[in-house]
């Protein structure tokens, strides 16, 4: 699997069969903070609201019970789109179909953990390196799908097909400790009850088209 890196230094997986690249993981707080450190409409007040729902942990404090704290959740779809626009050309939230294609593609791809660790050790800067390597040690994934946390991660914002204006739902199945309802990913989307509210278990990953 070919890896590239976004402007925050986090890995993107190249999936030519889907015609896109995708973040390996849901977007982390460290990535979001690169965005927040630039002058924009998202400052301390906004971040406090997000952190209140899902507090931040430092990468070196990651353990088996708190990994969801690494990721940005409680974010709304339009806010995730602002982050995507800052990330650069072609970045967007995935559609339902794209998300499901990625899920399928990662299920079928072989993962050789030692070489991935070597590659990440060489390519990543801190703090992304500590975060990724600790996560690998904790998850000990046997497939790219397990590593991607498309399941056992957070619910991720996806755009419903052919909707205008866009309708945003979620896909993914958090661990029961994080959100204790069972879903049936990747096929059943989760509809937020009120888009105006922040939802603790809703995060996102980006795709890059083209």
């Amino acid at each position, binding site marked *: 699997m070919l890896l590239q890196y976004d402007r925050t230094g986090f890995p993107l997986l190249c999936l030519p069969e889907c015609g896109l690249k995708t973040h390996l993981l849901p977007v982390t*707080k*460290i990535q979001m*903070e*690169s965005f*927040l*450190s*630039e*002058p*924009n*409409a*998202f*400052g*301390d*007040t906004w*971040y*406090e609201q997000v*952190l209140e729902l899902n507090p*931040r*942990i*430092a*990468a*070196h*404090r990651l353990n088996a019970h708190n990994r969801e704290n690494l990721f940005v959740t409680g974010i709304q779809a339009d806010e995730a789109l602002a982050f995507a626009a800052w990330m650069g050309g072609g970045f967007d939230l995935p559609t339902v179909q794209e998300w499901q294609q990625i899920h399928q593609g990662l299920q079928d791809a072989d993962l050789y953990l030692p070489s991935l660790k070597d590659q990440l050790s060489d390519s990543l800067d801190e*703090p992304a390196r500590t975060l990724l390597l600790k996560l690998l040690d904790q998850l000990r994934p046997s497939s790219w799908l397990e590593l991607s946390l498309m399941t056992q991660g957070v619910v991720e914002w996806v755009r419903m097909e052919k909707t205008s204006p866009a309708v945003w739902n979620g896909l993914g199945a958090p661990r029961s400790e994080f959100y204790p309802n069972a879903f049936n990913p990747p096929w059943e989307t989760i509809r937020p009850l009120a888009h105006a509210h922040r939802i603790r278990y809703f995060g996102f990953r980006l795709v890059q088209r083209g």
Partner: protein
Amino acid sequence: MPLHEACTTLAAEATGESVILILDASESASSCQRQIDALARELIEKTRVDRIYFLGNPVAYPANEFARQSSRWFQENRLRASLLIPLLKEIRREQLARQVVIGSGAIYDLDEVNEQLPNLLLVSVGEALTPYPGLATELASPNTESLLASLRDPIVRVQIAGPGFLPVFWHPSDASSYRLDYQDGSFMLIGENLSHYTVRLRYLCEAGQDLQAKITHRSGVENIFPMEQEPAWTAEESPQGWLTPDESALFDLAAAKQPFTCPCCLQTKLQDHLRCHRPGEGILPKSIYNTLRDTKGLVLLQREESRVRYRTFPNSVLQVSADKVAMMSRGARVASLFRFDRETGRWQTDREMEPYYKVGEAGYVITV
């Protein structure tokens, strides 16, 4: 582990008062801007502040412009979040300076960076800067005097060491600067009670390993800093030149262990005759090579076609093979050879260096 060569720089003032000021202009501190501004002005006036940063922003602002520009700078940075990672690389450059953050409200990534900033001091003028207690030293609404008191803790000792460490060049290197110590198979560079501790060095160490600088303050507080390698630099660290034709001929004879006539005493000598009394030049013997008469320590002589080039080594340390160095200690008359044992990771005394120690194809090291 094999040895490799690397370069690094430690930048430090002895006073312990060199301060990097990091101000909080974020939303969470907007209601405290007046207090932050006032405290920053006092620190600029009463300590050594060269650069000012704002949380979230890696750009350095000149401290001497603060009085005139502070309002504009606060305005420029007010939409940034309270984060240190974006400026971490910049503020770590001057490793021994105190990094003083003045602000209000949590620094979100503090737990990610505080171990890399042992000199960090947080000064809150409103809400606490630590997201949870115990992450870093924090003073809550201090007056200027108590803040200054906590900053005045001069450095009294710096010790640089690491796996397989041996500096081959360091600057400054005069008698009032760092000294090289050898203990139990390890070398360390030690500076004590210096007026400044800034040092540039090129060194050998085990591949893949970094050096550490242990800084001791007068209060007894000790901090350990990792020293990052920097791109290799080629300072004019080895003054060099050419011997005269007569000296070159003398060198050929001595290196070949042939007798020669000493140009100073005009007697026949062998290669262990490296110094001699020069008529009218005092009682101390000097190098028999007139070109090197004011040089001390190790000199590498290399025949290059019809001429002999010399290179001198200001720190009297020269790597003579992959795992071996020649070194002349302060006050010694003869250089010693040290060999690095890859098994134990220690430097071992090998033996005294012979008068003309062969290095490579055409080089010889002598002591003058």
